[in-house]
């Protein structure tokens, strides 16, 4: 059992096996700071019938450099990504912002590369993969408690992800989802924005925290670890007993 009272899952197939093999791109932030999120995502995908590979040479999608205006540097990292994943059939990512980088912004870096276009069509954010490709909404999860959901910006506005995660959460036995009144407002992370304009970033986080606290939820759920890092950091600074959990961690609970 972990601190939240959630029993770590054992893979247990509940869905239909997909012919395509899923290549995991866990993202640098998950690899280095939140590896449990990656493990949880893997468990859920296996439970849903996927066979997984983890290309070991993966690193980053290049987003931090791209968002800071360093296109040449971002291009180097993106090119490496393209090499690592060139033979992958399906690529699944536990992050809306990294998925959007690959599917929307690689095109800005390499406008004439047809491989980039093909890659965009084989890349999904984790919740999207479940609901739109595997067509699974009930992954057999169980977790008692009240949570609220934060719509991470890239997922919401670039990938148009809004209902999918909510539908997935609605099938988690024992779980109640309470909407905060500002679910769609930015958490204030924005990559280097959080350290270039920390006071503004912090102010934005606190506005979200106030809203989260008003729901009475014991956890805020999101599909982006960067948002969760921002919100969790602010929650801990304010000494609030509210957890920040990735959707994969919730869905992995049994």
């Amino acid at each position, binding site marked *: 059992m972990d601190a939240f009272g959630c029993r770590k899952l054992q893979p247990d197939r509940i869905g239909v096996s997909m012919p395509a093999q899923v290549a995991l791109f866990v993202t640098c932030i998950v690899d280095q700071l939140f590896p449990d999120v990656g493990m949880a995502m893997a468990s859920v995908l296996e439970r849903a019938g996927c066979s997984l590979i983890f290309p070991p040479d993966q690193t980053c999608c290049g987003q931090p450099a791209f968002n*800071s*205006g360093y296109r040449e540097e971002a291009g180097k990292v993106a090119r490496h990504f393209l090499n690592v994943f060139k033979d992958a059939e399906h690529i699944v990512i536990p992050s809306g912002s990294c998925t959007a980088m690959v599917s929307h912004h690689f095109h*800005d870096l390499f406008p004439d590369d047809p491989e980039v276009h093909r890659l965009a069509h084989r890349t999904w954010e984790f919740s999207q993969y479940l609901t739109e490709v595997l067509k699974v909404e009930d992954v057999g999860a169980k977790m008692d408690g009240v949570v609220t959901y934060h719509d991470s910006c890239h997922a919401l506005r670039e990938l148009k992800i809004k209902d999918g995660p909510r539908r997935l959460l609605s099938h988690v036995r024992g779980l109640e989802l309470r909407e905060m009144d500002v679910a769609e407002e930015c958490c*204030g992370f924005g990559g280097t924005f959080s350290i270039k304009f920390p006071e503004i970033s912090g102010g934005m986080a606190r506005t979200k925290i106030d809203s989260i606290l008003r729901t009475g939820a014991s956890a805020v759920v999101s599909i982006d670890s960067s948002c969760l890092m921002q919100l969790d950091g602010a929650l801990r600074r304010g000494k609030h007993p509210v957890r920040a959990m990735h959707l994969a961690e919730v869905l992995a609970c049994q």
Partner: protein
Amino acid sequence: MPMTSAGMQKTLANPELQLAVYTATGRLMDKRKAAVDSELLPEYQELRTHANALKQHTVDNLDWYLEEFERNVEAHGGKVIWCETGAEVANFVLELAKKRDLKLIVKSKSMTTEEIDFNEHVEQHGLEAVETDLGEYILQLAAQKPYHIVAPALHMTRYEVADVFTAKLGVERETVPEKQTMIARRVLREKFLAADIGITGANFLIADSGAIVLVENEGNARLSSSAPKIHIAVAGIEKLIPRAQDLGVFLRLLGRSATGQHLTSYTSFLAGPRRAGEADGPEEFYVVLLDNGRTKLLDKPERRQSLFCIRCGACLNHCPVYRKIGGHNYPWIYSGPIGAIITPQFHGTAKDPWLPFASSLCGACGEVCPVKIDIPKLLLDLRSDVVESRGNTVERLAFRMWAAVMANPALYRTAGDFASMTGTSERKWKDSSSMLAVGPVKAWLSQRDLPGPAPKTFRQLWKERAK
């Protein structure tokens, strides 16, 4: 490293101001949402696409439409005055006033005239230019600049308004907004009736009609363009749309996006001075077409969309950064996301290089823009411009090194393993007293806690799992 200005910090630390701005913009957001609701306006997305296409076409053929507009203004008895700079606009008005011995100007809300500091220019030469929009009038008395494109005095409380009126008008202190409004109405009514010249902006310039369109709620634009003998409309060259019939698209978007109104109280379509047989209206009608740098934004085709803006203010209302720092912490008269993309294009990226970075790239602005300006994309493009213009900085070096590590799996693994060695089996969330609090880490820790590296990376865990 932090780029937050002292002004921004002051605004962030002012709870009353924070509440005023957050509440006001929140209300405008809600009103807009109700007005573009998919049941009430199912064609909303289609209208946006159409408006974008109309603006794209017009801007791509701007010279044609400018000339068509001028021909039609003249056909209806008006005159077009072309001005490259704000000084030329002021000079035109000053010369006109001097020739005819005119003294008093009434002005209705025009961001374009704010852009060129019109009032200051003409007042230096002895003319009186009175703002007649209630919010702008209050600001003129308080010697402040507009806080928001549509709601200029969004940041002021009724008590601050009372202070301004007492100090500048010598009236008894009055804090009730309805009564404050009536005070302004009384004072300004006299000005309208005595004014020699009425100066307005223009929300749209209609090429096929030689007409301007004024969108308002108070009636001051109608009065400024109807009561005095001379009406001068000042507009940027990008305000053109091809046909009067295109108003069906634009008017259905503007009010809803700005304030949630289906149509504002008054929409005036004005083509030239009064005609034979008409009982009132101006005897002279001028449209000043202003460049002031707009032609620069035409150079790059992918950036022309910056000129599509119909000044609805929706992007400001939805911007979490604007809602925290307010309109006075932007370097130019245009604030919020639209200000962030046009300011560097007008003034060059060297002047306020921080501006394109003062955004979390949340994308809310692009989502609500009625003419579908891709503001987030332009912010990213401008960031790239800033970086390229600066050559090799410490930050560039850092990103070069970062990219070298990220493009090399062996280096990345070594760096990751090293970092995770500093973690412990129990995750430590460092607060600001930690010794590692330098530079970016310090900036992060000033606002929130930070997780240390995980004891094992995902890659290590995955390897173990396979065993």
